[in-house]
């Protein structure tokens, strides 16, 4: 059908909204409350256009044959400006931290608003938790965090409370975030266009430790960081910057830079052995991976009958953390009290994880990718022009298997590579498990281990996790990642998190895997050395003590 936009005749499909049609024809329309792939709510009223002389929200309206649409008439501009002013009226003015701009600031510039007639009136207390902080005084009630939490993650930790101008986002029953069933995935942070939700930052503590000469500061970087941190320095999405990242951290003054994928390799050794043990003893299936702290909390709140099914392995960065403070400390002769372990993670739930009492976490500060970029900027390092450098010994060699932990399906693929070779005692012919790669919500496959057919499945995103759990009994081995896309789409990653960007980051992760010389965890020479010198063998008493943990039942509310 044909419609007219700004005087231009445009041929378009019938089941598309005005906004979609404008996007296709590169006509820019401001919007704040729309989430990719979800039904529009038409809350913010910024995407207003003029349709046949009447104002209409372009995100929710389907045009009729031959209708006349204006996207920049005087009427439209005036309406957008007033609505923007009204939005700003609910938003404290001095919101920008360190001059960082967010979606709202950019829109404010774009709409050329000089004067805001309405004074802000919001007076809410900050909602502090171990990892996620909410500041309702910056909130503009766009509802994106609520939809990310409810419709994408199916956690429903937050919703609107109050009505009229008293409407505000609130955790269940007016509690604070750390008192309710929040899984700390941080998808609300990623959704927020105004920076009203953010991670609890450990910048001050980390920089203080870096400047303290007595402390030996060790940093480890998660697999998903190398595929994303470049975006913080205006590099294109999916740039693989492993070398530059190491160089930048070294220039920040970190004494040792270790690679979390090594911890992932350790996890695989333990997890694959645990799985084979279960296969041998015909134990409890499905066994479910435990690398994702958000998934752990999700399970503890909503699916705690699965506790016996869970692998008992700690997450990779905790494994590497404890190895740093035991194995590395013994080897290098540094007092472990002087070692500060900082983990750069794509995740805000890791911040919560490191406060879990039963874990006795060896990681002192878990910082997000965004925080790491802030530290690099703080030391005024020209990230883009750095040379590539290598990780430090002795905990700096990782395999492709470990790197794949950054993308959904990677843990499973890595575990299968090792489990197969452990069980069959012969090399795997084809290393790639293509059926569990990619952005599809639930991926599954099967493999023969010692003549036994093993079904495995992978889910990412809370919604898919819930769908997969409905038919969990079919499977022997399940990988769960709370964030869509796995760690590459974590709540601590550079923003925005669109499907396109996630796909590019995922490609980068698999590129790194195919690039690395060693691609199976059990072939990692350092892993072998650690077992030989320190832990004896997987699931040994010592390994159980330092590399494994337990879980608790939590309330559903």
């Amino acid at each position, binding site marked *: 059908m044909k419609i007219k936009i700004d005087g231009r005749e445009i041929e378009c499909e019938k089941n598309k909204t005005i906004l979609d049609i404008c996007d296709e024809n590169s006509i820019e329309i401001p919007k704040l409350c729309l989430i990719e792939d979800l039904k529009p*709510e*038409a*809350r*913010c*009223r*910024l995407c*207003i256009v003029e349709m046949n002389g*009447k*104002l209409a*929200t372009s995100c*929710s309206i*389907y045009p009729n044959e031959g209708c006349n649409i204006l996207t920049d008439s005087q009427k439209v501009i*005036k*309406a957008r400006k*007033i*609505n923007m002013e*009204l*939005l700003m*009226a*609910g938003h404290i003015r001095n919101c920008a931290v360190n001059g960082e701009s967010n979606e709202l600031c950019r829109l404010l510039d774009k709409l050329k608003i000089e004067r805001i*007639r*309405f004074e802000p*009136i919001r007076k809410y207390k900050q909602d502090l938790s171990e990892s996620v902080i909410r500041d309702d005084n910056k909130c*503009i*009630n766009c509802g994106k965090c609520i939809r990310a939490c409810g419709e994408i993650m199916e956690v429903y930790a937050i*919703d*609107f409370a*109050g*009505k*009229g*101008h*008293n*409407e505000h986002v609130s955790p269940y029953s007016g509690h604070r975030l750390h008192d309710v069933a929040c899984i700390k995935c941080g998808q609300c942070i990623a959704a927020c266009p105004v920076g009203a939700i953010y991670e609890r930052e450990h910048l001050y503590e980390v920089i203080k430790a870096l400047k303290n000469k007595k402390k030996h500061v060790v940093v480890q970087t998660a697999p998903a960081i190398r595929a994303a941190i470049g975006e913080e320095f205006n590099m294109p999405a999916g740039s693989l910057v492993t070398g530059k990242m190491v160089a930048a951290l070294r220039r920040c003054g970190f004494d040792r830079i270790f690679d979390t994928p090594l911890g992932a390799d350790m996890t695989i050794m333990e997890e694959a052995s645990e799985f084979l043990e279960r296969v041998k003893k015909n134990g409890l299936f499905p066994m479910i991976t435990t690398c994702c702290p958000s998934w752990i909390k999700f399970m503890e709140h909503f699916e705690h009958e699965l506790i016996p099914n869970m692998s008992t392995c700690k997450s990779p960065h905790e494994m590497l953390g404890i190895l740093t403070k035991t194995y590395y400390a013994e080897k290098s002769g540094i007092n472990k009290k002087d070692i500060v372990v900082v983990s750069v993670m794509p995740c805000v739930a890791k911040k919560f994880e490191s406060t879990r009492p039963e874990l006795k976490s060896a990681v002192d500060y878990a910082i997000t990718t965004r925080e790491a970029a802030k530290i690099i900027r703080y030391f005024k390092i020209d990230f883009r022009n750095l040379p590539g450098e290598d990780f430090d010994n002795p905990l700096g060699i990782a395999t492709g298997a470990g790197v794949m932990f950054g993308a959904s399906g990677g843990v499973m693929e890595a575990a299968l590579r090792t489990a197969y070779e452990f069980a069959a005692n012969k090399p795997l012919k084809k290393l790639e498990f293509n059926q569990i790669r990619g952005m599809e919500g639930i991926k599954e496959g099967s493999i023969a281990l010692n003549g036994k057919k093993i079904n495995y499945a992978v889910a990412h995103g809370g919604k898919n996790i819930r769908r997969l759990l409905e038919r969990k009994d079919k499977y022997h081995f399940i990988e769960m990642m709370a964030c869509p896309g796995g760690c590459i789409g974590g709540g601590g990653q550079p923003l925005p998190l669109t499907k396109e960007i996630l796909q590019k980051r995922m490609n980068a992760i698999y590129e790194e895997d195919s690039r690395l010389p060693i691609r199976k965890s059990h072939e990692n020479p350092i892993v072998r050395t650690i077992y030989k010198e320190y832990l004896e063998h997987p699931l040994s008493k010592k390994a159980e003590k330092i590399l494994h943990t337990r879980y608790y039942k939590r309330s559903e509310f």
Partner: protein
Amino acid sequence: MQILRKTELKAFKKAKRLGASGIIKILKQKGLVGRGGAAFPTGTKWEFALNTKANEKFVICNADEGEPGTFKDKFIIKYNPEALVEGILIAAYTIKARQAFIYLRGEYSYLENHLKRVVSKVLRKAKSSLKIGIIVGAGAYVCGEETAVIESIEGFRGQPYYKPPYPPTQGLYGEPTIINNVETFANVPQAILFNDWDKELRLYSLSGNLTNPGIYELPVGYSLAELIGLGKPKNKIKAVYFGCFGGCIPYSDIKLTPENVCGKNCAVGAFTIIAVDEKQSILDIAENIAKFYEHESCGKCTPCREGTKRICDIIRKIKSGKAGKDDLADLKELAENIQETSLCGLGQTATNHLLTALQYFKKEFEERIK
């Protein structure tokens, strides 16, 4: 009064004989339109729901009569609830719905038991397997909006969503739903049964500075002067408000037809007439209504959530005598914006009262300006 005539389930029996298409045909013929305010032809609405294929269909009676100055639904629920239930029965029969709901306004919860008794009595008499649930709202004005009623019944926050899809094709739980006002349902059996049923008769809710307010059943196009005369005002009447959302006009003798009133930028809606005499200040009324909308805005869309609050602030500023000319201009601009860009009927009509007041009684605003 026509609305109080008893039909004793005879209309339901006749409807069963007529069949679904017969019912819709007769409703269209007799010209029954929705009495909630939008005056949408009832037969057409039912036809949409009938023609949409679905496993489950629903009927909702909207008894969330929150509009200030409107009390006709309460009158029907009190004095002729049998007609209302029979209307619901006929609607459910037409579209083969197995479940109906009456969404009762929170403030009318004292009528719940009375209504429950009538519902079970009528259902027993009619030997119908229809289930009619009575759901009492929590007192939000916005829950009178049809999509908000649906959200509320489903157990979500009572907030409207944008249309289309309209409820007759996709309503409660995503299924086709007929949602009509109490007065509409109460008229259905009479329209079907009585040949002398007059489609022009409406229930006027008359209130304000009058000594004889109440419900008056009069035809559309009745003279405003005669109506006010029935109300026996003490002082000279200055203005007339058509409820809160309908806006106001200076008192003059006009015929109360939708066209006449719309010509004056007002909406006759559910035939609510609030008379205001000379002793009242329009500014006081504007503040009162603005306060009402500030309180009742659901908070979903920006212009209504933030705008109603700011409107209230500016009116207060004008009242206190501290406002300048800029404020008056801001007030008008903001009011127009809320009207044009809000999501639902509440926001779109929330500043009608103000815009018409500014049109007809600007003097009273200007007097208070520096």
